């Protein structure tokens, strides 16, 4: 199995990114490129579905941190869903769930964008 493989799918105006494997300093560039691809195509409403993610190191969270202000300034966001215990652990250690909204399911994460829009 590759260290990290990436896939993404559109759900309306939301792009869902599926990292499979682990994100550390070795694989982070692949992850970052997927985020950048979504942003460059004008899709700033991003959900990262972590169901295939075994762990993420600070390098991976750094990639999110480096881009989240840019997508927010375009009316978008980066939201997380389906995270395992190991990934949730590092988010808790850093207080990262204060920076990024975390959902239990992809459906909730995707629909959270339309709820926000209807409240505007």
């Amino acid at each position, binding site marked *: 199995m590759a*260290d990290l493989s990436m896939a993404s799918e559109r759900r309306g105006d939301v792009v869902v990114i599926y990292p499979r494997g*682990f994100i*550390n*300093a*070795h694989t982070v560039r692949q992850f970052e490129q997927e985020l950048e691809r979504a942003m460059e195509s004008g899709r700033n409403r991003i959900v990262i579905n972590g169901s295939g993610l075994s*762990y993420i*190191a*600070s*390098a991976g*969270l*750094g*990639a999110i*941190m*480096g*881009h*989240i*202000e*840019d997508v927010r300034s375009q009316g978008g966001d980066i939201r997380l869903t389906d995270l395992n*215990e*190991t990934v949730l*652990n*590092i988010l808790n*250690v*850093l*207080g*990262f769930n*204060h*920076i990024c909204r975390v959902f239990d399911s992809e459906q909730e994460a995707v629909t959270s964008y339309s709820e926000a829009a209807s409240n505007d």
Partner: protein
Amino acid sequence: MSPDEPIESNEDDPSASRPNGRSMLELRFPSNTKYLHMVRELARRIAESTGFEAAEAEKIAMAVNEATTNVIEHAYHGEEGREIEIHFQPGGESLDIQILHDGDALEEVPMPGFDLDKLVAERRKGGMGIYIMKQVMDGLRFGKAGSGKSMCVLVRYKRRDRKGE
């Protein structure tokens, strides 16, 4: 062993790098991020096999990953093929881990109030590794080994209420 206790290693006397006569597991590998996953998994397994529960072993693995990444990126500035040495010293009360290298010496950056919001506002991609190490380990220290190599020492107690004893 106290997190602040100096650790000496002496190439002429290998036992000198084994405080309290502890057995030691040594790992040497070239500086390359492709080895980070292997190092992380090894650290996790060693922690589990020395009596840490799975969740605790994960945290130790997390810290070792961050410390090793710092050596590759900041001590060796991404240069591949330099040597990194990790000594795992399991003891009855704790697991001590030394990460040695001969690149630029790393220092503990003072963190008066880690501010993640500020890092995000500045679009910073780094600056979290040492904070993670400090949060999940009981001891973190940077210094020189008797061999002249720079090292980062991580200590984790099995009972966290014994921290600092």
